[in-house]
């Protein structure tokens, strides 16, 4: 059946995770939406990598962690944009994960691009 079901299904598609210096939050936000994502979730994280410790309890700036649900094409655009633009000079890592689709008739018929809410 193609009629929209009253209850939304769990998201199936991709999750892109981007971890970067907090200074980049506002530009990453714009880039992610520009790449076609319809939303994002962001949280404050601390970390350590090639550039040493980042922890705002020590007056250093924190990192932020973006989590973006999107389809495959958007996932690639997000990854390409953020790593292409900031990967060279800024502390940034990014990866993607395919989400699990419950093997269930109603949602199996949905294309992966469908938003989670009807």
């Amino acid at each position: 059946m193609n009629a929209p079901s009253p209850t939304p299904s769990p998201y199936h598609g991709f999750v892109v995770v981007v971890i970067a210096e907090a200074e980049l939050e506002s530009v990453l936000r714009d880039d992610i939406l520009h790449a076609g994502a319809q939303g994002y979730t962001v949280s404050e994280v601390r970390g350590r990598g090639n550039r040493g410790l980042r922890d705002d309890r020590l007056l250093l700036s924190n990192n932020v962690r973006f989590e973006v649900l999107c389809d495959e094409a958007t996932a690639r655009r997000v990854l390409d944009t953020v790593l292409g633009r900031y990967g060279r000079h800024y502390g940034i890592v990014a990866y993607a994960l395919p989400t699990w689709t419950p093997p269930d008739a109603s949602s199996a018929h949905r294309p992966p691009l469908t938003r989670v809410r009807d």
Partner: protein
Amino acid sequence: MLAAIDPVVGFFVLGLVAGLLGSDLKLSSGLYDTLTIYLLIAIGLKGGFELASRDVTSLILPTAVIVVASAVTPMVAYQILLRLGRLPHADAASISAHYGSVSVVTFAVGASYLGRQGLDYDGFMSVFLVFLEFPALIVGVLLAKGLKADANWRRLAHEVLTGKAIVLLLGALLIGWIWGREGGKALVPFFEGLFKGFLALFLLGMGVTTAARFGDLRRVGLFLVGFGILMPIVSAAGGVLVGWLLGLSVGNTHLLAVLYASASYIAAPAAMRIAIPEANPALSMGASLGVTFPFNVVAGVPLYLAMTQTFYRMMA
């Protein structure tokens, strides 16, 4: 002898020791933010109250001189870092900007110290604090990029001018100026009565942070450690000279020397991260927080007063 030092410095040392011992003592980032906001407003208000009670036109010339002269620090620093330190272009420029800009907390420690010596200074010194935030940041970017188009000046100007340091200092200054001490007296118990307490907490946290930064000293290298101690002394000497030329009182000149000697660790890092992303922030923060800040708070502030007094005696 210890009595000459402000007890807030004791809290800095306490934080430092706790950090070096690996204590779990840490200030939450929310508390840091709160203390920063408080200190910026308190200092701005104080300057504004002062402005409200005096003739402002007499401040225009000294402000201009002090601001223009402040551009010397980053230019000298840049040459030293590039030629003697053989640092990359971008890093030399970014570090220069940090040292040319100012630290609000170092200023507060200097003012406290003066108070304990029974020396006067004028509240309008915090007006200079506001205007000394910018020039070095601009010089730093100019050094890094020349006047090339890609320097994205608009974004940088925006970052600096709307950074919370400037917004709160300038805003509180205006509020203090408009309402005056009488009109704003309900704010006094909070913003003046508690000043030392908040400063003590902030310095406690700064001690912990500085201890954590000591790890960066290895990266920073011996050269930068020396730079982090000698550069502020040179800048302070410049401050003494400029203060004397402007005919400022000993107290005011001391504070000017402290301002010139202090290195930024709030406004500059954020601005430089945007303007010169090629520069490694561990170098500039390691030097400014790990070397210069503790040096200034513990040894520099008294030293600069001695320098000021000696110079004034010599010239008298």
